[in-house]
């Protein structure tokens, strides 16, 4: 331990007090040759200064990054809200009429002279495809997750999960194309009509959100403590009883979170849905009649209308609805997470 010796000796010389010198070797256990100063005393304070500066620079840089990210989100929400609310504040369209009206034709005026801006068909369409797609995806995702974690962990983790996660990387336009060439003709053949509609849209969406929901469900089920499984097996329960009554019950908050995050994605998806949903802005009477979603109307209309026109403002209002709904979904996820933490101790 030459360093300790050196420091001990050095400090004794600086302080000039024998007590200070004796304390160090005693603490370090052994030092038969104390003393031999080598002038290392200057080093320690010198090194402290740049360290402090690095600390400060690091803190500043990270703080700026965090600030920019926060600012970005806040300004984004503010901008969408500003344009979206202009419909009601500047153009004088009643919010209630906007949310409950069933006719979407902003270029012509209704009986009361106001433009026909009923967003209800799109709201119904968006919620319709979202809920339906989650209904379709839930059994597959949870089944695949149970298989991956409980039944065939090696196969599941090495083959199934990577393959399912490949779906994340496929561009949404490809999903739309596949839906157009496979799902739409299938629906047309099976149920008649044009084939375009909520059913085709939700099937395409279900495939798109499958990887998200499956991956998060796998995480939720894998995070159930093994002690719960052992406790259940120890009581003479079969594997299925254990999975159903203990594992799924304990993983439920996580699975719900997975589904809602999937819903957030489905709710916001534009291109693939627009290609197969039919784009008729009227309240769908069945799953196979053409419909429209908030996103599909937005993508089709945004490029055609000049900024500042009433139609353009109305599109911003649709965007605002989308944004608010996404925020609501995320809020629900947080609430579930907190409740789940309480239940699982």
């Amino acid at each position: 331990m030459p360093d300790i010796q050196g420091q001990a000796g050095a400090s004794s010389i600086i302080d000039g007090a024998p007590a200070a010198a004796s304390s160090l070797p005693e603490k370090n256990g052994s030092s038969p040759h104390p003393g031999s100063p080598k002038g290392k005393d200057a080093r320690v304070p010198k090194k402290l200064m740049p360290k402090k500066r690095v600390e400060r620079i690091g803190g500043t840089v990270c703080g700026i990054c965090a600030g920019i990210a926060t600012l970005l989100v806040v300004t984004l929400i503010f901008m969408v809200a500003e344009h979206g609310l202009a419909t009601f504040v500047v153009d004088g369209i009643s919010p209630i009429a906007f949310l409950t009206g069933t006719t979407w034709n902003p270029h012509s005026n209704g009986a009361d002279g106001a433009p026909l801006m009923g967003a209800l068909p799109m709201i119904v369409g968006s919620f319709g495809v979202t809920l339906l797609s989650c209904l379709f995806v839930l059994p597959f995702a949870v089944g695949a997750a149970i298989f991956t974690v409980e039944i065939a962990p090696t196969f599941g983790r090495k083959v199934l999960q990577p393959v399912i996660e490949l779906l994340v990387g496929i561009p949404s336009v490809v999903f739309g194309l596949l839906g157009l060439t496979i799902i739409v003709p299938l629906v047309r053949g099976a149920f008649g009509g044009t084939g375009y509609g909520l059913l085709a849209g939700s099937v395409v969406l279900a495939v798109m959100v499958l990887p998200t929901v499956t991956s998060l469900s796998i995480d939720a089920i894998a995070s159930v403590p093994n002690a719960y499984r052992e406790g259940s097996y120890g009581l003479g329960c079969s594997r299925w009883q254990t999975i159903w009554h203990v594992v799924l019950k304990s993983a439920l908050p996580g699975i719900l979170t997975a589904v809602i995050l999937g819903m957030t994605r489905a709710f916001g998806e534009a291109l693939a849905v627009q290609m197969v949903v039919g784009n008729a802005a009227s309240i769908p009477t069945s799953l196979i009649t053409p419909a429209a979603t908030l996103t599909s109307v937005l993508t089709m209309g945004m490029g055609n209308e000049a900024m500042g026109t009433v139609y353009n403002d109305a599109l911003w209002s649709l965007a605002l609805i989308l944004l608010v709904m996404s925020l609501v979904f995320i809020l629900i996820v947080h609430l579930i997470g907190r409740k789940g933490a309480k239940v699982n101790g």
Partner: protein
Amino acid sequence: MPVKSVPSQTTTEAPAKIAQSARIDEPVRLIDRTAMLAEADAISHYAAPVDRTRPAKMSVSGLNLHYGDFHALKDVSLDIPEHQVTALIGPSGCGKSTFLRTLNRMNDLIPSCRVEGSVTLDGVDAYHDLDAALLRCRVGMVFQHPNPFPMSVYDNVAYGPRAHGIRKRAELDEIVERSLRDAAVWDELKDRLDANGCGLSGGQAQRLCIARALAISPEVLLMDEATSALDPISTAKVEDLVVSLKERYTIVMVTHNMLQATRTAQYTAFFLMGEMVEAGSTKQIFEDPHDERTGDYVSGRFG
């Protein structure tokens, strides 16, 4: 040169001091056999003597267990006498928990685990002639760490009976109360049956787990260091419980606490490095061990 002489003196003295204090501390820090036996005598002493006329409830012979390449249990043979408490002692990693888990086939859940030899329950081969789930209904288990399910106290206890087809509320009510009473936790929890089992204290949670195991009326109860995560008062309660439960159940417990073995067990088996070194009445194992290694262990010379 006072500066140099002072440190050199202290440094040469310091190690000697440590060594000296270690020599003095040694018998005190480790378990002293005579002191331990005296304490055991003062408390309750060897729980009632072994009744050798009773038949073996479970019988293990020529048991070999491998985890992949690791030979965890080497040719173990042991009889578990009925309505007695059998304690399994030994240093950590000696295979006693693994042995306990072979008795109700919990090791089946580990894919790399391979079991050879025979385990019988009432003379019936537990590995070939009994379904694992049925075996576990008859051989219940309490784990080292309390593991109540994330549901209410009531649902925790009713979980087993429900899984085995009991649906009537009145019947379940009765089972829950009886099990909680048997586990000596009824008085504390009777007003909190709707409380979440995960929110209980460690001692209550462990007795809840015992109640949960008792609810399916097993014949044998396995306890895997069931008191190691509990405070002394909770431990005493669980020990009293074990003593009172042996009238109706055959109990096998793994313990690191040798006083606990002397207080509760009639029968003790000593495990070392995957081998069952010696088994016999608790009194014999602690006072007159036939094997030198057993003597070393119970007198605290290692482990």
